[in-house]
């Protein structure tokens, strides 16, 4: 049983995983380079953990004091030295990931598994900068973490069976199943979902349909909970573009070429929900198209 887990990166996913861990009684060391991000994360963690049982009755009701006692928020990476498992959630940029993994490799015990919460970057590539390539595994959590019953787990080229078992054991503590797939850029989820989002942007740019019509076809005809453009707005159009660029570079396949319309929106600062505007305008009423 895991009792202390290190979470690197206090963005949306880092916060979500921290909430899930502490709701299952696991102490968490949350690390970020920004004090400001950690302060914001602490507030969100407390609110989400307090109210999460409303949405998932299986989760325990916890007080603010209990939440605070289980989370250590720090800018000092060394504080993860006694953690039994690491889940990393920093931005999808190799220039940031590479030095981080080299540092983690020095700080953590040799038996500690590194869970890479990436949506596109190769797990084998990450493993290659550590001295423990067999203990690096992809763990693609989905948002909101505490409501999702399964996650995409990615076995890198060197990932051992034991590491897969350890990742499954941690997930079992969180009442989650693992869908274990093999490593190739974008894995299953993003390799497919980003084609949907990108092609949806082309469809809108070509004047075939509005963003709302595209999303309604996915929701009302296909039965998806969200349409591809709502999803893109939720993820952040800059992140979607970054992932498409990674897919394009890795596969050298024109099917991953980022829609010029999507690129223009990013350049115009219409990054989605996080800034109040993307394919939809969120400053007035939800659902108003841009």
């Amino acid at each position, binding site marked *: 049983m895991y009792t202390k887990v290190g979470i690197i990166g206090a963005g949306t996913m880092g916060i979500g995983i921290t909430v899930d861990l502490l709701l299952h009684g696991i102490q968490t060391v949350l690390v970020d380079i920004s004090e400001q991000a950690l302060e914001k994360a602490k507030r969100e963690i407390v609110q989400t953990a307090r*109210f*999460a*049982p409303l949405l998932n009755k299986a989760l325990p*009701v916890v007080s603010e004091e209990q939440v605070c006692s289980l989370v250590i928020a720090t800018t000092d990476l060394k504080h993860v030295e006694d953690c039994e498992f690491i889940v990393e959630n920093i931005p999808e940029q190799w220039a940031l990931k590479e030095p981080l993994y080299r540092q983690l490799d020095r700080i953590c015990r040799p038996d500690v598994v590194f869970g890479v919460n990436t949506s596109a970057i190769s797990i084998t590539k990450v493993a290659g900068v550590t001295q423990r390539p067999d203990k690096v595994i992809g763990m693609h959590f989905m948002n909101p973490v505490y409501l999702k019953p399964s996650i995409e787990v990615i076995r890198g080229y060197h990932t051992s069976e034991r590491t897969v078992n350890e990742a499954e054991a941690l997930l079992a503590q969180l009442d989650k199943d693992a869908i274990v797939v093999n490593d190739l850029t974008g894995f299953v989820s993003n390799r497919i979902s980003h084609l949907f989002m990108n092609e949806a942007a082309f469809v809108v740019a070509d004047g075939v349909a509005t963003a709302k019509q595209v999303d309604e076809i996915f929701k009302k005809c296909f039965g998806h909970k969200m349409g591809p453009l709502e999803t893109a707005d939720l993820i952040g159009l800059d992140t979607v573009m970054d992932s498409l660029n990674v897919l394009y570079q890795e596969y050298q396949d024109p099917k991953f070429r980022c829609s010029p319309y999507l690129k223009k929106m990013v350049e115009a600062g219409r990054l989605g929900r996080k800034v109040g505007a993307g394919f939809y305008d969120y400053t007035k*009423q*939800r*659902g108003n198209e841009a």
Partner: protein
Amino acid sequence: MNDVKQLEERVHHYIAEHVDVPELDYDVEIFEEGLVNSLFAIQLMTFLEKTFQIKVTMDDLDMNNYKSVTAITNFVRNKQREGV
């Protein structure tokens, strides 16, 4: 406009900003009807605590308290009466 009406209007205004319907009925069940997703509940409770200076406790974690504008208004009124 009395206090209750003001409170109800404030809640209505907030919910209306987050749903995609031209008119929002005070009794429509916003989660049941799919006007907002379940995650909105957390955002809503944070708004209620900040705006009306109440504290949502463990006993208040019941979706019935937040299902409509009317239900939310009644919940906030009761909390204010309790003085928490």
